[in-house]
């Protein structure tokens, strides 16, 4: 190949797994089969006592000058909460997932040679692996209910239903017992049952572009009662006396952001150095909640190093890192130059 090949200065890929926001409903576990009997989970405001920062000093209530804020007069705050109402024991989470064709085809690239080279390596990868490994792992993350985030913790049962929608109608559907599938690792494909394999094949076909694939995903979480967890809104610079926690809703129905769903689905990277659990596919292997990046440029295990080495220096990454690079292309994003 050409030795003069340089990284395209403008390079972008579109997201190939495109989930919708998830909507939250509540009802009874027995009613899973039915469409009726599921009402939206609503968000309500709740007043809470904030922590009193100036602790009472000295003897109890010995405060003639009233220096200390009294217990009767705490910092009142409002927060949003969402709970299953009386009579409901099950949370239903519903979203759709569009699988788009054209993995590895940039949506913007200003170097035709570079673009050509990308398509070469993508082809090589496809020829030797296909997209089956990635598709299998994405499927696994649907089937194990990872996208439920906190709503999956400490619950009795979780059932996932995936439907393949063709021309607006369900063509085929599969059911999974989510709690029987691990969040810590991916079972090998050979252990997987038919439903997992079938859905994986479908996602693989969607990504490789032989057919457009639309899936509808429903999760039923039997939790008894209690709090459920929609996404939290991130609003900077809130004014004084404003709500300290705002939950996401769509037309009054509690929801989980599409970004959050997407993040769970692409939590398939177990190929980073000294991996002990799957992390979301990100160019630097970054995990926001931990404030940590697991794929460091100095170790040449980040996307940019791997991709450049592969394309320009013809240094073929390990099979595992090839999966990672392809998964970043499925994730999409603006690359070009390193973003830092």
């Amino acid at each position, binding site marked *: 190949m050409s030795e003069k090949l340089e990284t395209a200065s403008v390079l972008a890929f579109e997201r190939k797994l495109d989930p*919708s926001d998830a909507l939250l409903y509540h009802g009874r576990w027995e009613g899973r089969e039915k469409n009726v009997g599921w009402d939206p989970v609503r968000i309500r405001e709740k007043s809470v006592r904030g922590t009193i920062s100036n602790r009472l000093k000295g003897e109890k209530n010995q405060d003639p000058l009233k220096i200390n804020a009294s217990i009767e007069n705490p910092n009142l705050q409002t927060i949003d909460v969402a709970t299953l109402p009386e009579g409901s024991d099950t949370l239903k989470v519903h979203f759709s997932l569009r699988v788009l064709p054209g993995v590895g085809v940039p949506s913007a690239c*200003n170097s035709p040679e570079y673009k050509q080279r990308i398509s070469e390596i993508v082809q090589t990868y496809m020829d030797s692996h296909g997209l089956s490994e990635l598709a299998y792992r994405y499927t696994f993350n649907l089937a194990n209910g990872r996208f439920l985030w906190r709503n999956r913790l400490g619950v009795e049962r979780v059932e996932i239903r995936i439907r393949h929608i063709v021309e607006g109608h369900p063509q085929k559907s599969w059911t999974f017992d989510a709690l029987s599938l691990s969040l810590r690792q991916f079972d090998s494909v050979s252990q997987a049952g038919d439903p997992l394999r079938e859905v994986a094949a479908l996602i693989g076909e969607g990504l490789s572009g032989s057919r457009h694939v639309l899936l509808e995903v429903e999760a039923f979480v039997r939790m008894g009662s209690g709090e459920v967890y929609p996404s939290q809104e991130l609003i*900077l610079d809130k004014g004084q006396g404003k709500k300290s926690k705002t939950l996401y809703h769509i037309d009054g129905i509690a929801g989980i952001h599409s*970004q959050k769903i997407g993040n769970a689905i692409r939590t398939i990277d177990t190929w980073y150095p000294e991996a002990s659990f799957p992390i979301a596919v990100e160019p630097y292997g*970054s995990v926001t909640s931990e404030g940590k*990046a697991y794929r460091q*440029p100095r170790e040449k295990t980040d996307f940019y190093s791997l991709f450049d080495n592969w394309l320009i220096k013809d240094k073929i990454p390990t099979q595992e890192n090839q999966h990672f690079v392809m998964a970043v292309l499925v994730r999409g994003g603006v690359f070009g130059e390193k973003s830092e």
Partner: protein
Amino acid sequence: MLDIPDFNALLVIPRIRIQNANAISAPLTWGFPSLTAFLGLMGALERKMIHADSEFRIAFNSIGIVCHRFDPQVGSTNFFTRKFSLTRNPVKSNGETDSIIEEGRARLEMSLILGVDAPSEILVSEEERKKMALRISRTIEEMRIAGGTVIPGSSRTPRLEVVDEDIEKRRLAFRKLRRSLLPGFSLVSREDLLQERLDELKEEKADSTPLDAWLDLSRNNVRAVIQDDGQDGESDKIATWVSSRKERRRWIVPIPIGYGSLTGIHPAGSVANTRDSTTPVRFVESAYSIGEWIGPHHLSDARELLWWGHYDEEHGLYRCVNGYKPTREDDHV
């Protein structure tokens, strides 16, 4: 060239729901995504159709927008302003949180109406029209619309409607169309108001500029009017505060209308890091005008609904043009 480009059919894609659409339409406006995003969608759609099938012969020339619902993802209002809800960005490789330039996002439900020029062999057969409408709308569903994505299963059956030569038939067809777009609001151009307001302002203040007129129309102006309570003495006068928005009683909004150029045209490839090296390049800024959200039942013709792109070489202006002509009843006098 300000005339509407030819169209002999309308492609109607009713009630698509879009999530994560870009609600910051320009450096000075937010709300419904920019018209330029929809013109961009139209161009990208045509290229995509041709790319998939070199025999594709339908030209997309203009686009109409009807909004049925709009839910911006904004946080609680503080005293004067609204803040955007954000999504958390991945941390940097050193584990630090990245500082963010805020992005505004919205969910919306809208109908798209495309003015198309199609070969007659497609238009004569109802079967062909149905198939074609479905094919195009499928492609749109896979595309980004104003940075957002289409929520699957949301749109209703798309239609490709022939625009009849006969005035009476055309009128009836349009009446049917606009009814089907209710309830909803279409965005039309009201650049006439910009000029009208400027003339009025100039009567009060001779050096008023279009910027003053634009801001004036973009906000609610409340002015004190003295009402004499009949008694003598200045101090007894009661002031009534009159609001311009109430007087106008129309959904007049500031909108980006396209781009004004900042430089000449740079030859293809002469500016570094552009998306290709085969297209001439130009630095531009947003240009702004006034639009109105109006019920489609107030429109009398498809061209009042449609927007198309125009390049004004003399002024280096790339603008979105719309064929709306206000009538007396629209002024709600």
